[in-house]
Structure formats: structure tokens, C-alpha cells
């Protein structure tokens, strides 16, 4: 029995096609039954995320199974045959593809980790619904091992890939975990909101928002579950916060070196991280000269993000080497060594815990 993979992803299909092919989460068990009722398909796992729709499976005649699957998808999701081109992989190529996906090499944000959890969930759903047996169980267990190995033995996750993630990574490099960090947002613009959201998602708890228009400050504070501060009062908070995100529309700098120096005296050695994403800049550049104060503007954050993306791209070949090494060690040969059998439909009997 051979393994195969059929799918589309963000590189091969536009969002208009991906959204039509997307499997509703609640309907996946039914689809799994229907796919396994197709002639030649013995096992199946459906991986459906916003960036990809893929079906992994096992069959005695993989070519025939792939043809049946294409017919099924086209008829079921009502796409025109010419509108979509599925990629097809068999045997080692299919395993290699899944291992790359699990390692984040095929993701829109190279090296991201969310896909790993999505694959685990897809496998778990298939396993729970009896759609997997020996080959899929073995393949997916191996993909989890490879994904972990790639992430721990390479730098594919290292470096920031966006302005928001660069700001968060820098904050973590200064403060460690962000759960005790207090954040002050100056301005109620979109960039400030997105950056504050990123910090909040990583644990920052206390968020204060200050804006010339107090109503807008209150609205953003509500969204961030923080508090609004009158614009005249934000300087008094400088000694109480760890991170300042500034994105006002002020024509000149509003955060002066003297204000920060004064606040530092009351901070008992605690560091201060200033993120200036406003253009024109809100924070005096000389503030960075103060000990224990780290100021980054939008260009500097963008450069870090660009360098992070470039660094991750350099890691692709190293990651592929790790995957190939794994396949050479115990990959497809181990899968191929599984005796050909025709498991009872619905019998995912030899599953291993993930």
C-alpha cells in the first residue's frame, strides 16, 4: 500500500479557490467517511487551514485514488476543473511534503508553529473517526518527530518576521516573560493597536492608552482590556510602565529625553523599552543614549523583520537536510516495511498516542 497527498496551498491557489475548497471543521468526519468510501482510498487525513487544503491517504493504487479524490473535490465543492490545479505526491515525496509542512517550511510565515498544532488536530480527528490505520498513523507520528527535530536543531523559528513580532521579540529579550510587563500606548492608531495586541497575546497584562481624543483612547483601551489615560497625564506614567508604544500623528517629538531621564530616576534600575512607530517620529532619538533605555523606530523594526525573514530562508536547506536525514534513517523505508493489509473500515487499531 502506498501513501499519497493531494492539495492546494497559498502558493498554488488564490484565496478565492482555497476558501471554496475549505472543509468546515464540523463536517470533516462526514467528509472522511465519504473519502474512504471512494474506490481505492483506504486511509485518509484532511488538513484544512486558511493557507492549505490537503488530503493525505493510503491506497493500493495511489494514482487511481488521487483521480477519484480530484473528482470528489471538484464535484463536492463545485469548482471548475480548469480553475484549480492540485499538487499530487506519492510515497517518499508525500512523506517529504508532510514533513516540510509540519516543520513550517511550507507556511506563509516561514517556520511558524501553528501548523504543527493544526496537523495534530487533523490527525486526531481522522484517528477518532477511524479513518487512519497503520500507514497514516506511522506517517503522522513521524511527521511530529521530524517537526520537533527540525525546530530544535535549526534556527527556522529564530528571528522576527514582522514589525509586531520584532517588537515582541525585543521586549522578551529585555524583560523575559511579558506577563508582568506594563504597557503604555500613545496614540490610538492601527499600528499601535496591532503592536499592543501582539504584546497582550504574549502576556502583557496592564495596558494604558493615551490619545489627544480621549474617546478614541477609551475605545482602544476597552478593546485591549486596559485603561484610558488623559493625554496631559501620560508623562506621569513613564516611571510605572515597562514598554511605551508611540504612534501619534504629532508633527514633532512628544517624548523628550528630559522626561525619560526624570522617570528613570524613579525606576530603580528597571529597563524601559520604547517603540516609536510614528512618522514623523514621536520620540527624541537621543533617548536611546540613556542607560537602560532601548528605543526602536519603525525602520529599525522593519530591518530586524527583514533580517529575520532572510535568516529563516537561509535555514530552509538545513531543515531539508534534517528531513532527508530522517527519511534516510527511518522514514519511508519504515513506512514501506509495514505489511500490506486491508484494515477494516473504521478500525484505527494501532494508533500511537501523539
Amino acid at each position, binding site marked *: 500500500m502506498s501513501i499519497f497527498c493531494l492539495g492546494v496551498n497559498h502558493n498554488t491557489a488564490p484565496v478565492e479557490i482555497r476558501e471554496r475548497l475549505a472543509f468546515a471543521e464540523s463536517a470533516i468526519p462526514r467528509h472522511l467517511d465519504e473519502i474512504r468510501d471512494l474506490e481505492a482510498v483506504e486511509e485518509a487525513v484532511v488538513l484544512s487551514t486558511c493557507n492549505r487544503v490537503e488530503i493525505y491517504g493510503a491506497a493500493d493504487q495511489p494514482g487511481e485514488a488521487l483521480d477519484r479524490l480530484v473528482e470528489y473535490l471538484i464535484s463536492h465543492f463545485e469548482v471548475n476543473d480548469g480553475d484549480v490545479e492540485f499538487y499530487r505526491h506519492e510515497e517518499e515525496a508525500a512523506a517529504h511534503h508532510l514533513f516540510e509542512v509540519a516543520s513550517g517550511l511550507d507556511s506563509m510565515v516561514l517556520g511558524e508553529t501553528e501548523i504543527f498544532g493544526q496537523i495534530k488536530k487533523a490527525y486526531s480527528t481522522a484517528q477518532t473517526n477511524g479513518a487512519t490505520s497503520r500507514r497514516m498513523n506511522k506517517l503522522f507520528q513521524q511527521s511530529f518527530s521530524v517537526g520537533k527535530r527540525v525546530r530544535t536543531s535549526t*534556527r527556522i523559528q529564530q528571528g522576527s518576521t514582522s514589525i509586531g513580532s520584532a517588537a515582541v521579540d525585543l521586549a522578551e529579550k529585555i524583560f523575559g516573560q511579558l506577563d508582568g510587563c506594563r504597557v503604555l500606548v500613545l496614540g490610538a492608531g492601527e499600528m499601535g493597536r496591532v503592536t499592543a495586541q501582539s504584546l497582550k497575546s504574549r502576556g502583557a497584562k496592564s495596558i494604558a492608552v493615551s490619545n489627544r481624543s480621549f474617546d478614541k483612547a477609551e475605545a482602544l483601551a476597552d478593546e485591549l482590556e486596559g485603561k484610558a489615560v488623559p493625554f496631559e497625564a501620560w508623562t506621569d506614567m513613564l516611571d510605572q510602565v515597562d514598554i511605551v508604544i508611540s504612534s501619534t500623528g504629532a508633527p514633532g517629538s512628544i517624548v523628550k529625553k528630559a522626561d525619560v531621564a526624570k522617570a528613570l530616576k524613579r525606576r530603580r534600575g528597571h529597563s524601559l523599552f520604547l517603540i516609536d512607530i510614528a512618522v514623523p517620529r514621536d520620540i527624541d532619538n537621543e533617548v536611546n543614549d540613556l542607560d*537602560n533605555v532601548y528605543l526602536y523606530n519603525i525602520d529599525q523594526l522593519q530591518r530586524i523583520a527583514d533580517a529575520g525573514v532572510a535568516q529563516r530562508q537561509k535555514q530552509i536547506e538545513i531543515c531539508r537536510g534534517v528531513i532527508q536525514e530522517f527519511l534516510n534513517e527511518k522514514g519511508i523505508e519504515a513506512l514501506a516495511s509495514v505489511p500490506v493489509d486491508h484494515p477494516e473500515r473504521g478500525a484505527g487499531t494501532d494508533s500511537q498516542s501523539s
Partner: protein
Amino acid sequence: MDKIYLILATLIFLGGFVLAVLALRTGKHGTGRLNVGLAVAGLVFQCLFLKERGDLHMRCPITNGAEVLVFISWSIVILYLALGRAFRLSLLGVFSMPLVFVFQSIAIISLLINDPGARPPETLDPWLEMHAAMSLLAYGAFGLAGIAGVMDLILDRQLKSHEPGRLFYSLPPMKYLYDAMQRLIVIGCGLLTIGIVSAFFMDYHPTALHWMVTGAVWLVYMAIFVVNLLRGLRPKALSKLSIAAFAFALIALSVL
């Protein structure tokens, strides 16, 4: 055989350092466990060296400068292995290895040129043993604080320059380094205090110079501890003080 053990330990620490640098340069990760393994292997050979020397002298093997350097190196390694993970400072070992390598290389050269041989005591004084051992363990803690200070200054420079280098992503956060420096200084002060108190009970009476030097080192570190406690030293200031104080402590030790 003792020197062979010491050479093997030294080569292992050099190997660990080279491996870590290569991993950082090539982008290969996952060498952390191997580095800890190498540190443990190096520690085993250090222990074997110290045991052989202890058997030779029939007391704690800190009878000459070379043995003192090895004992400090041993303290640094054992404290790193004991505390590095708790302080979330995996890279501390990588930064410790060059210092340990230098200390032990000096010890090897010194012993190969002139090994003073056995120096058994006329009578074994446990207070003397306690004084020497605790004081040198304190040096291990101070050494690690200095190494954490170096790491903090590197990180500070990279953050200030806005151009994170290769090391940047491997270094621990500044807060962890700052916390580690504070804790290591407290641990070192505690150990050194025990060492000094032990000296009052020794049969052998230390010279005035010995008291002055030991007291000066204790005072320097206590001053850092108290000022930090009362006023809260900034991380950069604490890093510089940790490095300078350890350099001073080493010079003071060489005077003895």
C-alpha cells in the same frame, strides 16, 4: 595521572566551547544537551584530578596556585550545572568554558613546569579546610556573576546598536541575567562570609595581609550587594561592577 585528568578536563571544556561557537556560526541548534554533557564530563575529570591531589596531600587540594585555579574552575562548573537551568541561563556554560579553559591551562603549565608535590599537613584542621573551600566556592559564584555581566553587556550593546547579531537570539533575556548576577553575588557573599567566619576558628593564624585581602574582597561584594538592595543598580552598572569586582578578586587572590 592527575595531570592527565586535568588535561582531559581542559580539552573537553575547549571542545565544548568550540562546538558552541561553531553551532552559533552555522546556525545549527540543539547542541545544548551535548554542551551540558561535555560540562559534566569535564567535571568528572576535574573531580578525578582533585581526588588524586587530595590523596597526595591528604587534605583539600588547594595547596598551590595551580590547584586553587582548578578548584575555582570546578566551582564555576558545578555552580553552572546546579544553577544555570534554574536561572534559565543555558548559554552561561558556553561563556564559562573559555574562562575555565584559561584557568586550567595556566594550572597545567604551572604543574608541568614545577609541581611542588605532596604537602601533607602536620595536623588536619577542618576549619582551615572549610575556610579555603568556602572561599573558593564563593570565587566560583563571583566568576559566574562576572560571566553573566559580560553576557549582559554584549546584549545591551546589540540592543543599543539596533543590529542584533548572531549571538543575540541565543543570549538569555536581560532580566534573567540581571537576576542571576544578583543571586550569584548573594550566594558568593554568603559562602565567603562562611569562609571568613571559619578562619576565626582555625589553629593556623592567617597573616595580616591574608585578612586584609580577604576582607577587601568581602567588602567590595557586600558594598555591591547593599547598594543594589538599597538603591537598585541599573543592569549595566551591575554588570560592570560584577566584572570589575571579579577581576579585583582574582588580583587579590594572586597576592596571597
